[in-house]
C-alpha cells in the first residue's frame, strides 16, 4: 500500500520524500490544478528538481492536472500534459475527459490516474474512465462508506486510491458549486475553493470577528472561539430558527483507525490532503502514516495506534478535530 503525500512547493516535496512518502503529488503554478493558490506550486525548473529529488530516493511524482478547461483554454492543459511527460512525471492525475483523452492519445505510456474531481463512485463509472481513457488508477470521492469502498475494490477495473487524512470536502468532489455561487470563481474551472481574495475579516468592538466571502457572512466568532477559514460548507448558518454548522464543522478526515480494513480491502494507495499546508504539516503527517503502514504490514496482529500519533494528527487538523467522515455510517 502506497503513501501519496502533498507537495505544494519544493521544500514540502523534499520533506514528504524524506519522511517516507512513496509518491508525492504536485501541480504547476497556474489553474491547471485544484490548488491554484497564490505562492503555491511549481514552475518547470522547480518541478524538474522535485522529480529528480523524488526519483533519486525511490519515490514517484504524480502531477495533478485535475481542473476542467473550457474550450478556449484546452491548449494550456494539453501543453501541461506534454511538459509532465517531457519532465518525467510518473503519472498525471486528471478528471476532465478531453484532458484524459489527449493524454491517452499523445502520451500513452504516461500513466493516468482518475482524480477525485472526476467523481467516479461506482464500477460502471470507473469502467467508463478505464475503457475510454485507459486509466490505471482512480482516486475515490469522499462519499463512500468503508463497506462501499470494500465492495468497489472487488469490482473496479483499476486499483483504487482513497483519502486518508486532511481537510474534508463534504460534497461530491468536482461537482460542488457552493464557492462559485458566492464568488464566481469556480474550483472546477479556476482551481480554488473560497479564494482568499474574496475573504474579508472584520474585528468588532466586543472582540468578536466576522468572516465574509464576497460579502456573504459565513461565520462570526466570539473572542474566545478559534476562527476557521470561511468556506461555505463549514460556516454557521440559521436553519429552522437555530444557528449551527448546518453542513459541517471545521474538521479534518482521519482514517488511521481504519487502516487495517483499508489494507485488507485492497486499496492500493492512501492520499494525504494538504498541498496548501506547510512543511511541518507534511513532515509530521507523512512520518506518522509511514510508520503506521510499515508496522501494520510487518506485524498486523499486534498493530495498534499510539495515542501520540492521534494527538499529533488532531493538532494538525482543521479546527483541531478529526472525523472518520463518510467511511463511518453515523457521519451520513
Amino acid at each position, binding site marked *: 500500500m502506497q503513501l501519496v503525500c502533498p507537495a505544494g512547493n519544493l521544500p514540502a516535496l523534499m520533506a514528504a520524500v524524506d519522511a517516507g512518502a512513496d509518491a508525492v503529488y504536485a501541480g504547476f503554478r497556474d489553474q491547471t490544478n485544484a490548488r491554484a493558490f497564490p505562492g503555491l506550486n511549481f514552475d518547470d525548473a522547480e518541478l524538474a528538481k522535485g522529480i529528480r529529488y523524488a526519483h533519486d530516493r525511490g519515490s514517484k511524482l504524480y502531477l495533478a492536472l485535475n481542473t*476542467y478547461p*473550457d*474550450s*478556449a483554454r*484546452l491548449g494550456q492543459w494539453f501543453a501541461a500534459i506534454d511538459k509532465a511527460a517531457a519532465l518525467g512525471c510518473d503519472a498525471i492525475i486528471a*478528471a*476532465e*475527459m*478531453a484532458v484524459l*483523452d*489527449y493524454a491517452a492519445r499523445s502520451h500513452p505510456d504516461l500513466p493516468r490516474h482518475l482524480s477525485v474531481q*472526476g*467523481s*467516479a*463512485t*461506482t464500477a*460502471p*463509472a470507473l*469502467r*467508463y474512465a478505464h475503457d*475510454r481513457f485507459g486509466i490505471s488508477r482512480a482516486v475515490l470521492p469522499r*462519499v*463512500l*462508506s468503508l463497506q462501499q469502498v470494500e465492495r468497489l475494490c472487488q469490482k473496479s477495473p483499476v486499483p483504487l486510491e482513497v483519502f486518508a487524512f486532511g481537510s474534508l470536502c*463534504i*460534497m*461530491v468532489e468536482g*461537482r*460542488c*458549486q*457552493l464557492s*462559485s*455561487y*458566492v*464568488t*464566481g470563481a*469556480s474550483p*472546477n*474551472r479556476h482551481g480554488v475553493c473560497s479564494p482568499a481574495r474574496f475573504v474579508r475579516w472584520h474585528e468588532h468592538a466586543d472582540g468578536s470577528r466576522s468572516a465574509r466571502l*464576497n*460579502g*456573504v*457572512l*459565513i*461565520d*462570526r466568532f466570539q473572542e474566545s472561539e478559534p476562527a476557521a477559514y470561511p468556506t*461555505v460548507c463549514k460556516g*454557521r*448558518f*440559521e*436553519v*429552522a430558527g437555530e444557528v449551527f454548522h*448546518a*453542513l*459541517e464543522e471545521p474538521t479534518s478526515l482521519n482514517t488511521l483507525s481504519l487502516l487495517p480494513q483499508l489494507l485488507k480491502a485492497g486499496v492500493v494507495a492512501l492520499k494525504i490532503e494538504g498541498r496548501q499546508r506547510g512543511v511541518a504539516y507534511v513532515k509530521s503527517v507523512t512520518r506518522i502514516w509511514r510508520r503506521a503502514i510499515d508496522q501494520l504490514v510487518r506485524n498486523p496482529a499486534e498493530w495498534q495506534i499510539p495515542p501520540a500519533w492521534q494527538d499529533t494528527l488532531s493538532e494538525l487538523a482543521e479546527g483541531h478535530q478529526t472525523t472518520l467522515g*463518510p467511511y463511518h*455510517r*453515523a*457521519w*451520513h
Partner: protein
Amino acid sequence: MRLSLGPLQYFWPKPRVLDFYRAATQWPLDIIYLGETVCSKRRELGTRDWIALAEQMAESGKQIVLSSLTLIESESELSGLNRLVQHGGFWVEANDLSAVQLCREQGLPFVAGPGLNVYNHQALALLVEDGLRRWVPGVEQGRQLVAELCGAYFSEAATLPEIEVIAWGRLPLAYSARCFTARALDIAKDQCKFRCIDYPEGMALTTREGQPFLRINGIQIQGEEITDLGPELGELRELGVDILRLYPQAEGMPEVVQRFDSARGTLLAPARAGGRNGYWHGEAGMRVGQTEPTVI
C-alpha cells in the same frame, strides 16, 4: 424553442406527485423529465413507479426522459439505474458517469444532465460518440462558455447535439453523502423517517444576519433564489439554445410554464419574475452586493 419540465428535485407524497404530473400533461410543455435525482431513500415512487408513470405519460405525445440519480453509492442504487437503462423505451438523463457508461453499453441515447461535467467541446464530442443527444450545461456555465463551446464545436464541422438551458428554478449546487435535512432535524440519515417530505421546497438556510442564502434538500444543496432567464430569452435564442428547462416547484407551476410559453411565441422578452442568474452573465451565481428590482 421547446420547453421542458426538469426532474422534481423535492420529495412529495405520491398523490401530490401524480396530481402534479397529471396536470403537467395539459401544460404547453414539450419534454418532461421523470425520476429521482437526489436521494434513493425517497420511495413514495420507486424506480418501477417512475417507469410506469413514464409509460402512462408518453401517451400525451410529449417526450418523456428518465432522470438518473446524481450521486450513486450503493449496489441497490446501481440496480435502480440499470432498470432505467434496461427499459430502453426512453432516453435517460445521465447525471453521473455510471449512467453514461450503462447507456453507452446498452446503445441508449442519453441527455447529459447538469450533474455531469462538460466544460468544453471535445468532452461534448466524446459523449456524442457515446450516444449523447442533448446537453444541459452545468449550473456554473454561462453565456460565454456555452457560446465558445458551440463555436469551437462548429469549427470542427460537427453537428451539435440539442442544448437545454436551465431557465427557471433553484439551482442544484452540491451533493453529499450526508443528509443535511436529517442533520438540521438532529436525526440520523439511516433513521431519517423521510422527514424531507415535510418540506415541499426544502429548508431555507440564511446567514447569521438573516440574508436568504441556500436551500437544504436532503443530500442536495440548492441556491435560495429561484433564477429566471426569461429576460435573457433573446440571447438564448441567438445562441441557438433549443430547450428551456423549468424546474418543478410546489406552487404556481402552471403560471411559470404559461409565462415561458407566451414568451417563446414573441420577440419581446418578459420582465424578470424570479432572480437574476449571475452565472449566466459570468459572475457569482447569487446576487451579491447591489440588488436589482424584481417584478413579482
